[in-house]
């Protein structure tokens, strides 16, 4: 798989504030790429530079073989962006909104009508076309935001916290559409999110803190590197769990023992088979990874 996004030594400052400091990473074609960081970590600045909304101070940005400095217009044709907050015109109808935005890509007349039909089926908003955007619910508006981003059939879809504040049903619909697009059109998805369960589904994750990359790998590698495993043992008492001589915590009907990796868990099981009658081994979660590498918790839009 080739790299569709290549960022090399990218830096951007606002006065004395170094928003992005010499970051380099690449995104492979067709993958779901997660870009994580607390507010102010540099995610939005990086995205704005990629989209041509901000000038970089230094570094190179190559999208689908085009350098940003020489081919920003071509690059913009390959990117679809779903912003954190809806940027559609609230006083206009859904159709008027999509028509005016499609025209900015040169899509008009029959071509627009055809694309509108496809998208209204894909995102299930046929009945909403004449409705004013300002009167739609949060979930309905999000579907129109995504339709707007897909109008020109982009190769890369940038999703800036797309599911924040959405109900579970709309989140599910949104992710099923994205999966379908990735499957059918090999679309690359560049995601920023505060939901760690969404990041855990990514093919590759980059974690940003204070403008620098602090960790990057697949979710599994990140978990293996930055968190240990957990053995949840059922049907034992505290005296038995103390025999294992490992850190533990009591949960409602079991004890949760921390071990550094799966091999250590196996050794414990072999050494104390009488304790492990009913148990399960789980990997650490992306929340644990995030906490381990940044020292901060990322929970639904706010960091702690």
């Amino acid at each position, binding site marked *: 798989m080739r790299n569709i996004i290549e960022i090399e030594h990218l830096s951007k400052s606002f006065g004395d504030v170094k928003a992005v400091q010499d970051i380099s990473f690449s995104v492979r074609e067709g993958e779901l790429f997660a870009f994580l960081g607390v507010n102010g970590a540099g995610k939005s600045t990086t995205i704005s530079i990629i*989209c*041509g*909304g901000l000038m970089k101070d230094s570094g190179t940005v190559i999208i689908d073989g085009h350098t940003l400095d020489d081919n920003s*217009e*071509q690059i*913009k*044709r390959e*990117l679809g*962006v779903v*912003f954190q*907050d*809806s*940027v*559609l*015109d*609230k*006083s*206009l109808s859904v159709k*008027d909104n999509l*028509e*005016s*935005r499609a*025209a*900015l*890509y*040169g899509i*008009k007349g029959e071509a627009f009508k055809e694309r509108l039909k496809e998208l209204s089926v894909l995102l299930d908003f046929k009945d909403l076309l004449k409705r004013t955007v300002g009167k739609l619910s949060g979930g309905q508006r999000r579907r129109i935001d995504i339709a*707007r981003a897909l109008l020109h059939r982009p190769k890369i879809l940038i999703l800036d916290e797309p599911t924040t504040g959405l109900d579970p049903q709309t989140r599910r619909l949104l992710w099923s559409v994205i999966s379908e697009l990735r499957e059918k059109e090999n679309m690359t998805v560049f995601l920023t999110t505060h939901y760690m369960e969404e990041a855990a589904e990514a093919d590759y994750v980059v974690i940003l803190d204070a403008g620098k990359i602090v960790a990057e790998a697949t979710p599994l590698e990140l978990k293996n590197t930055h968190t240990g495993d957990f053995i949840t043992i059922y049907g034992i008492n505290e005296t038995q769990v103390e025999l294992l001589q490992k850190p533990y915590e009591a949960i409602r009907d079991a004890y949760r023992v921390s071990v550094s990796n799966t091999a250590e868990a196996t050794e414990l099981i072999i050494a104390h088979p009488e304790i492990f009658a009913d148990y399960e081994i789980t990997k650490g979660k992306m929340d644990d990874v995030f906490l381990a590498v940044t020292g901060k918790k990322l929970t639904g839009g706010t960091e702690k």
Partner: protein
Amino acid sequence: MIGLGLLIKRNIKMFFKDKGLFFTSLITPLILLVLYISFLGKVYRDSFAMSFPEGMEIPGKLLDAAVGGQLVSSLLAVCCVTVACCSNMLMVQDKVTGARKDFVVTPVKGSTLALGYYVSTLISTLIICLITTGAGFLYLGEVGWYLSGSDVVFLLLDVFLLVMFGVALSSIINLMLSTQGQISAVGSMVSSMYGFLCGAYMPISQFSEGLQKVISLLPGTYATSLLRNHALRGIFEELEADGYPSAVIESLRDGIDCNVYFFGEKVGLPTMYGILGVSVAVLVGVYVVLHLVKRK
């Protein structure tokens, strides 16, 4: 220019559908109408009647037409600029709502966006101002019609030029704004101040001499005077035909700003057109330069 037509259509729709922007743009003309109904009409009438020497009286129909002409020209003078300013606020509102961010990620050029705002503001403002002009003509027809065909054509030309001026001026001002607070502040300032500065609420001739000199430096003054001249020309012609002394007529023209003086020098109508035309060209030039500088 990809998407210019639909961008203009979108901007015009946004203006007319956004009740906040639309009604704010009508505040100044409405203030003027309320002032006129409550007391300005009487002030105009008294000051016009008192301009005649003792023993000389103006016929009632001519007086009504003169006061009507003054109202219509004042209304158009403020309308063309304040409506343009409010309509052009969409440029700032798009920054506030994030729509501008959405435009920037498309391949559309910055110059297309800038032209889109300019042309759509021009069209929206012209629609409102031409409707106002039509209503003004109906009103003049009711109180006394003394306009010739050429007066009507020149009044329409004055409205068009003043709208061009208002759009260019507001484009420059709005280019610097980026928040809702700034929109409200500038909108209120323009709405409240422009009526005074252009002599719509009160004739410039009634201001102090120093202030008159300052106001004579503003291009809007000449636009108001052009509108006054064309709205009232027929009345002065009628007075002349009725044998009123030219000194009296000249004093009337001075009193209601048909004659404007630049540091003591009377400014002719062709010069007024020149000033307005050059102002529009300079303001559009400044807008283009500022736009290019801002992009860099």
